[in-house]
C-alpha cells in the first residue's frame, strides 16, 4: 500500500508541471483562447512532442502504455493550468473509447495519428433529453451497404467543433432507454450529412451541437454500452484529478490573498472566521484529493459494479468539494474574485462545468445509493 509515484511517473509529473508553469500562465492562456480554434495549435504540437498525446495508448497503437495514474498526473497539472486544448476530448475520452470499444486494428490505425497530433476526436453522445444517462440514445443507425447511416441530434459534444472525427452513440435496436442495442460509431466530422455548430462553453473551452442527417458512419462496436461506460468511468477519474488541480489552485490563491490583503489595519487571514473557513476548504480539498486517487486506482477495475461504485463516489465528492471550494474562494476574495481579469473565477467556472460533465454530484450520489453504497454489510 503506497501512494508514491514510480520513477517514470515522477519524471512525467516534473515535465508536465514544468510545462504548465512555463507555458500556461493566466495571460498566456488568454492568448491561446484567442486563436481561431479556441486553443493553441502550437501547444497541441508541444503536447505531441512531449509524448502526452500518446500517454494512454498501448505501444501497438504508437503510444506509451500509460494507465490511469499517468493520466491523473497530467490531468491534475492541466487543472492547475486550466488547459483549453482538447486533451480530454481527444486523448482521455476519445482515446479511451477507442481502446475500450474499437478493434485492435482500428486502434492501431488511428492511435498513431492521435499520438502525432494529427487527429482530434470528440464524443457526440448527449441528446436533448438524455441528461447524464449513457443508455438513453434515440439517434438511429441503419445499415447501408458496408456501413451505416446515422440520423439524430447530439448536444454539447466537447470540442466537437475542432474534431476531425466524431465518436457517436446511435441506437441499432431496442427502445430509447434500453441498455442493449447501442452502437458506437465513428463519423468523419466533415462528411456529408454532418452539421456542426461550434460555440464556447462557460469555462472557456469549446463544444458543438451536431446534427446527423443520413451521415455515413463506420461501426466500432455493437452493444457498446459496457465499453462506453468503462471509457467514461476512466474519463471521470481524469476529470476528478483535473478538478483537484483546479481546487488546489483556488486554495493557494485564496490563502495568498488572505495573507496579503489588509483591512482594519491587519491581514484579513488573521481573522478567525476566515481562518476557519479556509480550513474547511482544505478539508474539502483533501477529501477530493483522496477520492481522486481512489478513482484513479479503481478506473481500470474490470468488475463494472465495483468500478462504478468507486467512480460515482469520487465524482460526487469532487462535485461537492469543488462547489464548496469554488464558492468560498470567490467569497473570501471579495470583489476581486468577481472579475474576469483575475484567475480565481476561471477556476470556479471550470469546476462548475466539471460537475456537469458525465454526471453531477447528485446524479452520482443517486447512482451509488442504487448500487448499495460502498461498505458492505460484511465489512
Amino acid at each position, binding site marked *: 500500500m503506497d501512494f508514491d509515484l514510480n520513477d517514470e511517473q515522477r519524471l512525467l509529473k516534473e515535465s508536465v508541471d514544468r510545462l504548465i508553469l512555463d507555458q500556461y500562465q493566466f495571460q498566456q492562456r488568454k492568448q491561446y483562447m484567442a486563436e481561431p480554434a479556441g486553443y493553441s495549435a502550437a501547444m497541441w504540437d508541444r503536447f505531441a512532442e512531449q509524448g502526452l498525446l500518446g500517454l494512454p495508448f498501448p505501444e501497438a497503437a504508437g503510444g506509451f502504455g500509460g494507465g490511469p495514474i499517468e493520466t491523473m498526473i497530467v490531468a491534475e497539472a492541466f487543472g492547475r493550468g486550466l488547459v483549453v486544448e482538447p486533451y480530454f476530448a481527444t486523448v482521455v475520452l476519445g482515446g479511451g473509447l477507442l481502446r475500450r470499444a474499437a478493434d485492435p486494428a482500428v486502434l492501431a490505425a488511428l492511435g498513431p495519428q492521435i499520438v502525432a497530433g494529427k487527429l482530434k476526436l470528440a464524443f457526440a453522445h448527449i441528446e436533448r433529453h438524455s441528461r447524464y444517462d449513457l443508455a438513453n440514445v434515440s439517434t438511429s443507425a441503419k445499415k447501408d451497404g458496408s456501413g451505416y447511416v446515422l440520423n439524430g441530434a447530439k448536444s454539447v459534444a466537447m470540442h466537437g467543433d475542432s474534431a476531425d472525427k466524431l465518436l457517436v452513440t446511435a441506437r441499432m435496436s431496442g427502445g430509447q432507454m434500453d441498455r442493449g442495442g447501442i452502437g458506437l460509431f465513428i463519423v468523419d466530422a466533415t462528411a456529408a450529412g454532418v452539421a456542426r455548430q461550434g460555440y464556447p462553453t462557460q469555462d472557456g473551452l469549446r463544444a458543438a451541437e451536431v446534427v446527423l442527417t443520413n451521415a455515413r458512419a463506420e461501426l466500432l462496436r455493437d452493444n457498446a454500452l459496457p465499453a462506453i461506460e468503462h471509457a467514461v468511468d476512466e474519463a471521470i477519474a481524469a476529470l476528478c484529478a483535473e478538478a483537484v488541480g483546479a481546487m488546489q489552485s483556488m486554495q493557494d490563491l485564496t490563502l495568498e490573498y488572505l495573507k496579503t490583503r489588509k483591512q482594519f489595519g491587519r491581514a484579513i487571514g488573521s481573522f478567525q472566521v*476566515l*481562518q476557519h473557513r479556509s480550513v474547511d476548504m482544505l478539508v474539502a480539498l483533501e477529501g477530493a484529493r483522496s477520492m481522486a486517487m481512489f478513482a484513479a486506482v479503481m478506473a481500470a477495475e474490470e468488475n463494472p459494479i465495483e468500478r462504478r461504485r468507486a467512480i460515482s463516489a469520487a465524482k460526487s*465528492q469532487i462535485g461537492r468539494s469543488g462547489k464548496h471550494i469554488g464558492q468560498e474562494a470567490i467569497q473570501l476574495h471579495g470583489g476581486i474574485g468577481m472579475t474576469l481579469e483575475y484567475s480565481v473565477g476561471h477556476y470556479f467556472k471550470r469546476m462548475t462545468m466539471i460537475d456537469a460533465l458525465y454526471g453531477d454530484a447528485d446524479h452520482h*450520489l443517486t447512482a*451509488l*445509493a442504487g448500487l*448499495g453504497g460502498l461498505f458492505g454489510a*460484511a465489512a
Partner: protein
Amino acid sequence: MDLNFTEEEIAFRDEVRAFFRSAIPDSIRAKVAEGEGLTRDDMIQSQRILNKYGYCTPNWPVAWGGKDWTPVQVYLYQDEMQLANVPSPIAFNVSMVGPVIAQFGSEEMKKRFLPATANADIFWCQGFSEPGSGSDLASLRTRAERKGDKYVVNGQKIWTTLAQYGEWIFCLVRTNTEAKQQEGISFLLIDMKTPGITVRPIITIDGGREVNEVFFDNVEVPVENLVGQENKGWDYAKFLLGNERTGIARVGNSKAKVARIKELAAIEQSGGRPLIQDPKFREKLAAIEIELKALEMTQLRVVADERKLEKGRQNPASSILKLKGSVIQQQLTELVMEVVGPYAMPYQREFDGRNEPVVGPEYATEAAPMYFNYRKVSIYGGSNEIQRNIIAKAILGL
C-alpha cells in the same frame, strides 16, 4: 501508487482479525456494536486478554511491551479491532499516561506503573480540564505546592471520564504561579484513595454517567509521583495529545456502524417495505459513506506518509482526520436514531443495568442516547474549533 497490501501485511491482518473475533467474548463485542455502555469489568477483561497476547500496547517502546510495527501494521491492527467491535484498550492507560511515563518517567516509575497500566491493574483517569480551563487548558489553576517530600494539591478538575472507576489520576497541576502559564505546569500521578479527593458525577444529556468532577482538598502527593521535571508538564501534555494519530478518525468503527445500519434498515419498515429500499434513506447513507471513504483514503495517505517521517513527527493531515472523523461518527449515530424511528423515544436507561423489559427492539434502546452522547466527540480532545485554529496556524500558516 498501489492500494493493495503486501502478502505479509495481509497475513498480519488475517492474524489480528482472527484473534479479535475469537479471543474477545461475543457478549462484549455485541455491546460495542450496539453502543451500549461497557462495565468496568468488561473493559478490564477485554484489556487483559489483549495484553496477555501482546496486542494491548503496540504504541509503547518495545522494552515495555510495545511492538516494532510498521505504520501499516498499526493501521491494520486498529482497523480490525474497530471492525470487530473490540473495545479499544482504556485510552487513559494505553494512549495517554503509558506513553508519557515510558517517555519521560524515571526507571523506578516505569517499573512501578507500566506493567500494571498495560494490564489494567490500575484504572487511570485524566485530570486535565478545569471549570475555567477548557479550550484554554494552559490557564489551569489546580495548585500543587511543594512541602518537604510532598506536594499539597488543591483545586478542581472537571469532565473527568470514568473517574468513578479511576484508581489513579494523572493531573496537570500548577507548580509555579510566577512563570508564563505554560511554564508553571507539572504532570503529577495521584492515587485516588488519597484523603481529600472527592468525586462527584455529572450526568450527561444521554442520561449516562461518564464524566465527573474531581475535587482536591489538601491532597498530599509524594514527590516521586512527579513525572519528569517540575514545570515541564505542558510539554508532556502536548506529547500526550499529539500521540494518537491515525486511530483518532475511528474509520473502522464507522465502517462497522455503516454495516450495522444496513442490517437494521433491512429489518425496519417504512411505507410497507424495508427502510433500506427507500431511495432517500439510501442517498443519505451513501452521502456519509462517500465522506467515510474519503476519510479512509486520507488516513491511508497519512499512514503511508508516516513511514517516511521521522518517528514521533506528526503528519499535518492527522488533525483533519479528527475533524472529519468526529463529524462522521456523529452523523452515523443520527442515522441509527432515524432508522429506529419512534422506538428512539422510550427512555430506558438506568445506571447499573436494566431492570425493566425493553420497549421495542433491543437495538433501539441505545439509539437516542448514543446520538446525544456523541455530540461529545467534536468537543473533547480539543474541540473542532480548536482543531481549526491549529490547522489554520500549523498547516495554512495563517
